């Protein structure tokens, strides 16, 4: 490789890394500040003596643990149920036989338009009925709303994966007298494994980060991490270290999950979407 090329490559690398670090800096600084004491955190500084005290304080906070638990519950159960409902639905839309041939397309379109629905359009009736049914104090109310909002995403992503599957395999299974359910579980699902993982991950990240519904449909015992984070917005200068430590705990799982799975995510998103 000649000098010019090497220089070009080094130059490019420097530019890219500078951009990347600057772009990521707010989050990096937040993680760093979690290791400061409040006194150290007041003035922006890159060099300091790190301590674990603040993290200890935040983790020991009974409330913080509660919000963490609530988020974990919403994500784990919510994603599972969304997958549980969405996978068969996508399967049925791709291969199902209904009385009218257009049903497949019509219902698929109906699912897709639901993705467009902003949560503000449903918050009023949901809030008032949740109050009447006392669902705000339990995680199930919010969870079923999350499922309702995220099943269409699962359906949308998996639909194209399923459509890509060769029909012959399923036909053969039909001839062998295999039931639909068995076809789905033993044949179809393994073939769209990437899609299932990708949609599951996407839904998990979305639910973990979801704010608007969580903000309005929860109470003390059921509030999730994004709701807890929003409470810090009026604490100027007073609790920066605590805010940083809490944020670090709140965003770490989603960031790690997202990073580890970027490849699957992209595959799922683009495969699912590119085919339309």
């Amino acid at each position, binding site marked *: 490789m000649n000098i010019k090329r090497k220089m070009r490559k080094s130059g490019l690398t420097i530019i890219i890394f500078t951009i990347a670090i600057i772009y990521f800096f707010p989050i990096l600084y937040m993680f760093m500040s979690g290791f400061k004491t409040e006194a150290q955190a007041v003035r922006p500084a890159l060099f300091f003596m790190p301590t674990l005290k603040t993290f200890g304080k935040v983790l020991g906070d009974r409330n913080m643990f509660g919000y963490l638990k609530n988020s974990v519950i919403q994500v784990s159960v919510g994603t599972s149920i969304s997958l*549980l409902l969405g996978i068969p639905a996508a399967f049925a839309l791709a291969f199902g036989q209904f009385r009218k041939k257009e049903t497949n397309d019509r219902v698929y379109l109906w699912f897709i338009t639901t993705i467009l629905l902003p949560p503000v359009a449903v918050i009023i009736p949901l809030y008032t009925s949740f109050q009447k049914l006392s669902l705000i104090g339990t995680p199930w109310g919010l969870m079923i709303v999350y499922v309702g909002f995220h099943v269409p995403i699962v359906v949308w992503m998996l639909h194209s994966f399923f459509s890509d599957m060769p029909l012959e395999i399923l036909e053969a299974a039909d001839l062998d007298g295999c039931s639909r359910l068995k076809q789905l579980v033993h044949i179809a699902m*393994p073939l769209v494994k990437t899609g299932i993982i990708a949609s599951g991950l996407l839904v998990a990240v979305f639910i973990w980060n979801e704010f608007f519904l969580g903000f309005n449909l929860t*109470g003390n015992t059921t509030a999730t991490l994004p709701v807890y984070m929003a409470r810090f917005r009026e604490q100027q200068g007073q609790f920066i270290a605590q805010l940083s430590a809490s944020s670090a705990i709140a965003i770490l799982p989603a960031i790690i999950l997202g990073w580890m799975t970027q490849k699957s995510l992209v595959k799922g998103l683009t495969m699912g979407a590119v085919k339309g």
Partner: protein
Amino acid sequence: MKHFSFKVVTVIFLFALVIGFQAFANGSSDSDATEDVTINIALANNPLSQALEKIANSKYSAEGVTLNIAVLPENDLRQRLTTEASTGGTTYDMFYIGPYEANNWARNGWLEDLEPYFDALPAEKLAWYDRADLIQGMVGSLSLNGDSYALPFYGESSFIMYNKELFEAKGLSMPDEPTWDEIYELALAINDPANGIVGMTMRGAPGWGMSGAPFVTMVNAFGGRFYDMDWNATVDTPEQRGAWEMYKKILRDAGQQDILSYTYNECIALMQSGKAGIYYDATSIAPPLESAESSIAGKVGYVMPPHQKQKSNTAWLWNWAMGINPKSSEANKEAVFNFMLWATSKDFINMTVEMDPTGASTPPASRSSTYALPAYAKTPYAEMTLKTLESTDFTKPTMEPVPYVGLQYIAIPEFADAGTKMTEYLADYVVDKISLDEAIRKTNDLFNQVAIDGDYR
């Protein structure tokens, strides 16, 4: 390979079921009266309420009762509780509100009448609580037809706090009963951006209970009012304009940099750091300024709230009080009542004075006996607090007669929205996004609309 994803999904599902089941088991613990109850409380994020949260979490214990306290930004708290009360929800068992809500909600049946609860108390407990010791003005603002619907946790009026050191350094002195003009001149004199000193700090963040509070008292002081007796909006008057201009002048010429993001929390932090000369806010803000965390403890002066055209009654009157959600279960309501008694009792006040002799955690203006406590009476702000409280009359807020009551707010339900909108227009005007004429016109139209929509006119 074929069964791999099936296994993965099954594992996730089972894991989820286990967690879900555990959550379910934990979640159903507050329904039976003979078992443990959990009471849900939301408090505001002002210093005294936050002190209550800390003390309650460490010192409150009642058999079979678990406290679950969340501290919310004040605007959020009001919005959540109001919508909760009006939709009959049970998310919160205790309502942390002020006279604005209490009066209205009692009328609508959104607060539990406390008299039956008091009647059911054994004689010694009633004597221990000593209802007569509660400051009657506060109690009255929380009652309807003589029945109490909420108990005052702490009360406040408003006054001027100033940094005596900064004043001495510049050879200035604060009059005992300043006018707004005088305050402005003093703020200008102290203002020293080159050295990072702010002349005067005031709440700038919009919200009827946020910047609305100091602003509306300013309007009253300038002789302005919001409605005439026929419910015509009177925002477009020279008196009101005077107030709007003064508010802007102070903040732009001598106020904090990040004007609009300053709630009282930010103002307190600024004042505590010694970087502000004058601060107009609630009397309950004084304790944090005298606390151990404040670098100006012992160097703060207190004078009457500024007047202008109206010579007196230019402060505000507020208390944060505790009421019971009438829709909660009987067991929860009982538990909340006991908690309320504890938090508003003399024992609680004594405990806070012991914990912090500067009085930073002690609820002011709820009980007369507080001011008899030697340690508390010695605090620099006690005397002026009492003086301003006694100067207020919330039934006659303005120079000319008005069809409403309330000093720093108008006691109609629509004010939560209209007042907030007004402070938003004010904010726009302060940062030069709209002209004064535009802001006044919008506010005037708004209040007229409210009068019509709400069938007042």
